[in-house]
């Protein structure tokens, strides 16, 4: 027995994404954002996308490329304060933005990956985000049903991947990446390093290979992955 090889060319993997698809993106700010996969998605040109990501990056990078190219119809997120274009598009109605409390966004994505329908919580019950949510009465009080958040595709940035799709992440670049890697029908991971099978110790794997469909090795890392100069 041996484990299957899932390495793949980037353009080939991204070409699977059709118009109208929902696409989850890893990253919290710069760390963990799959910039090269996003760039490939801009080149590929799929439109009418629903993007699911913690934030909208900053002006001129990442999600902003997709917004600028007019490929995004809807953004499910927790914070877009650092991207003026996203805020402006939300305000002028050209972008449909759904806000979630950050941990609720994480938990809804994880719920999809865990194969449950959703969860019940009272987080945000006192806020405008509670409007329209289904109430559930439980033995420990009233909560709101938060439905699992699935996607058609997840674009993941990993520090290291092996050929089977086991992934590990570096420092705070982990963030939403292991969660989205469980929650999409098709999971595409870009990795700064691709190592042979066994190159990641089994105890140190952050995302197990069974969740991952395609592994793409990154070329020399473009500058956008570097330290942000403010």
């Amino acid at each position, binding site marked *: *027995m*041996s*484990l299957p090889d899932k390495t793949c060319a980037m353009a080939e993997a991204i070409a699977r994404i059709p118009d109208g698809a929902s696409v989850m993106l890893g990253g919290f700010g710069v760390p963990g954002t799959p910039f090269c996969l996003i760039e490939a998605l801009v080149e590929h040109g799929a439109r009418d996308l629903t993007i699911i990501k913690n934030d909208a990056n900053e002006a001129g990078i990442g999600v902003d490329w997709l917004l600028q190219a007019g490929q995004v119809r809807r953004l499910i997120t927790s914070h877009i304060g650092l991207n003026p274009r996203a805020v402006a598009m939300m305000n002028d109605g050209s972008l449909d933005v759904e806000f979630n409390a950050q941990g609720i966004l994480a938990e809804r994505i994880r719920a999809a990956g865990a*194969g449950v329908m959703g969860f019940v919580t009272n987080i945000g019950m006192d806020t405008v985000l509670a409007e329209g949510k289904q109430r559930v009465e439980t033995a420990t009080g009233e909560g709101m049903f938060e439905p699992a958040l699935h996607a058609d595709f997840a674009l993941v940035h990993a520090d290291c991947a092996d*050929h089977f799709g086991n992934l590990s992440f570096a420092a705070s670049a982990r963030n939403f990446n292991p969660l989205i890697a469980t929650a999409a029908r098709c999971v595409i991971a870009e990795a700064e390093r691709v190592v042979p099978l066994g190159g*990641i110790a089994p105890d140190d794997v952050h995302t197990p290979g*069974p969740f991952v469909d395609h592994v793409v090795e990154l070329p020399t890392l473009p500058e956008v992955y570097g330290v942000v100069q403010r």
Partner: protein
Amino acid sequence: MSSNARSRMLARAAADIAPGMCVNLGIGLPTQVVAHLPTGAQVCLHSENGISGVGPVRPAGQEDRNLIDAGGSYVSTLPGAAFFDSALSFAIVRSGRLDLTLLGAFEVAANGDLANWIIPGRFSPGPGGAIELAQRARRVGVLTAHVDKAGNPKIVERCTLPLTAAGCVNRIYSDMAVCDVTPDGLVLRELAEGVRAEDVVAATGARLTVPDTELPVF
């Protein structure tokens, strides 16, 4: 079941494990399917106690005390294996990342219902991972003797025992035959060597469609 018949049944089930699959093999007969995979088979075995990339059982004296599969066997791991907690392990199961599970059965019904975890008043050790495997693997195969030790059919029209999951079984591998659960009921697909279709029909407690064509033999 003769050891020869068992061996052919196991080999037949192994033949349905296609390259690239992620598979969970239930405790008992299903685990023995491993031995019948071709050398170098590209397959990822999952164990619900938190392993992907399970390898063969280790010989005595070479066990790792921290490394068992869900059946308690001291297994090895393949290069590229991963360890994870029980929540993530069942995330793999419930979110549909298992292409196939092979399970044992007390009873399996013509509508795909499976009963394999409780015999009221006699045997109730708890469900373990069976319910989620049966309900969520993309494909569920059952490995079972065609009749029980008393000669009674294990493949029945309706299960009498409490279910593990309803309508979950796709294919049954027995010492006599391969049968598929279809929208039109059970269909005989293949025969074990030396077994006739009418033997299978007689040993089956449910209506079994026998196609008009010649059936492959395994």
